[in-house]
């Protein structure tokens, strides 16, 4: 085995399927007049997301970071008047390795001007349906999924009810620290494995998990994040937002991320103040979504592990 580490871990057939999938994705957007653009993979600014870590590089003698997503670059292009556009290329995340993760992966991210999250969910369903040949699409709110499977309202349940539910269903080595940790545990360990084989579009996330999505009152008057996730057979494929366009709110969220990172002894890197400036200049009303191409390929080809679709995962890179 060790003497064969020069070889790709993916079969030649899988790499041919990859080429075919990339060309179909490009065809999908060409037909819809969404333009392919490039943004930096190497940047002077890191992500502020509390649960995502940037990989640090050295460029011209100073620290630089590998992009964890093309989001900031794409939004700056949108603010500059680019119009509907997408990025299809590499993204990097420190410490993410396993059967469904490789620190270097291929991401598709696209933006639709004048659209909201609901309309974009439809297009995500179309893309997944076309590339996977699946016609079953179910849209369900975050609240409804928790109610159905756990008889629990994720927005209004008490902290202790959430913790009890997590501890009842899972064997944990720790006590969950807060609501979001309980929700993340239940989602990834309990709800995802129970999703059917079709396309599941999950929307209206708790406001505390808004990331860069707008927070708007739902039909019950509760503020929820206009964020959605797409799953196929319980595998998380895409994450989208009705994008935050308010520069001041964006700045507050960056600062809140910094405080969280500081309090949890995580690296605190300079945030992208140019995104705040772009929002000040005016980001068009838009919705955007990022989708993992490697996982899409796993589903398209029936592969169980990510190294079966990546020629040289980090162990061989």
């Amino acid at each position: 085995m060790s003497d064969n580490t020069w070889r790709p871990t993916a079969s030649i057939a899988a790499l041919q399927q990859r080429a075919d999938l990339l060309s179909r994705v490009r065809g999908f957007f060409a037909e819809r007049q969404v333009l392919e653009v490039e943004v930096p993979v190497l940047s002077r600014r890191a992500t502020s997301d509390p649960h995502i870590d940037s990989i640090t590089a050295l460029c011209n003698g100073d620290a630089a970071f590998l992009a964890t997503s093309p989001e900031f670059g794409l939004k700056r292009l949108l603010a500059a008047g680019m119009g509907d556009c997408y990025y299809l290329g590499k993204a990097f995340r420190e410490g993410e390795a396993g059967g469904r993760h490789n620190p270097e992966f291929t991401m598709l991210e696209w933006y639709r001007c004048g659209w909201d999250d609901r309309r974009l969910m439809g297009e995500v369903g179309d893309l997944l349906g076309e590339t996977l040949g699946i016609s079953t699409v179910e849209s369900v709110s975050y609240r409804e999924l928790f109610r159905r499977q756990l008889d629990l309202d994720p927005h209004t349940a008490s902290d202790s009810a959430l913790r009890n539910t997590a501890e009842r269903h899972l064997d944990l080595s720790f006590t969950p620290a807060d609501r979001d940790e309980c929700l993340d545990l239940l989602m990834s360990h309990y709800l995802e494995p129970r999703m059917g084989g079709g396309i599941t579009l999950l929307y209206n996330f708790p406001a505390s998990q808004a990331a860069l999505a707008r927070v708007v009152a739902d039909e019950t008057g509760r503020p929820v994040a206009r964020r959605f996730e797409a799953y196929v057979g319980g595998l998380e494929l895409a994450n989208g937002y009705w994008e935050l366009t308010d520069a001041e709110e964006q700045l507050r969220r960056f600062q809140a991320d910094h405080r969280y990172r500081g309090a949890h002894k995580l690296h605190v890197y300079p945030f992208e103040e140019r995104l705040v400036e772009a929002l000040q200049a005016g980001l068009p009303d838009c919705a955007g979504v990022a989708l993992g191409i490697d996982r899409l390929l796993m589903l398209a080809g029936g592969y169980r592990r990510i190294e079966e679709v990546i020629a040289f995962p980090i162990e061989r890179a």
Partner: protein
Amino acid sequence: MASYSTNEFKGGLKVMLDGDPCSIVENEFVKPGKGQAFNRVKLRNLKTGRVWERTFRSGESLEAADVMDRDMEYLYNDGEFYHFMEPDTFEQHQASADAVGDAAKWLKEQDTCTVTLYNGAPLAVTPPNHVILEITDTDPGLRGDTAQGGNKPATLSTGAVVKVPLFLEIGETIKVDTRTGEYLGRAKED
């Protein structure tokens, strides 16, 4: 003792959990795109053999267990303990019936087994994958019936009962896979 972080967990790693030595069976990295990272780990308790699943926060660590596997020769059973010997040092170890468990029915004197030592004492015994044992009891053989698929139970010299083809007789020696209890063929050494 050293400790291991979740990103070092891999199949076969021996760690302490809830005071018991465990062997990691599987380690799955679980991370919602925008959520926290966890490791969902399957472990086998080396004392009870029970496999269970526990979730850790990524980056948590567990103390290493002083557990090692040694190849040893099985010597004899004195009625209470099973005695094994390390071939190079001739050091002897006695294992309780609890530690030997199901392996007991495959133990033949002078066979080489894997003995798992925990803090220096036998915790578990794994017999060789293939053993050659004599049939001590079975129904009379059906001559000429070498092609048919039928089989019958046969008791072996160690007490194990396996299914064998109808033509085999008492006194014959056969090769058995101890992992599945499956008959593999007549032993050639006769």
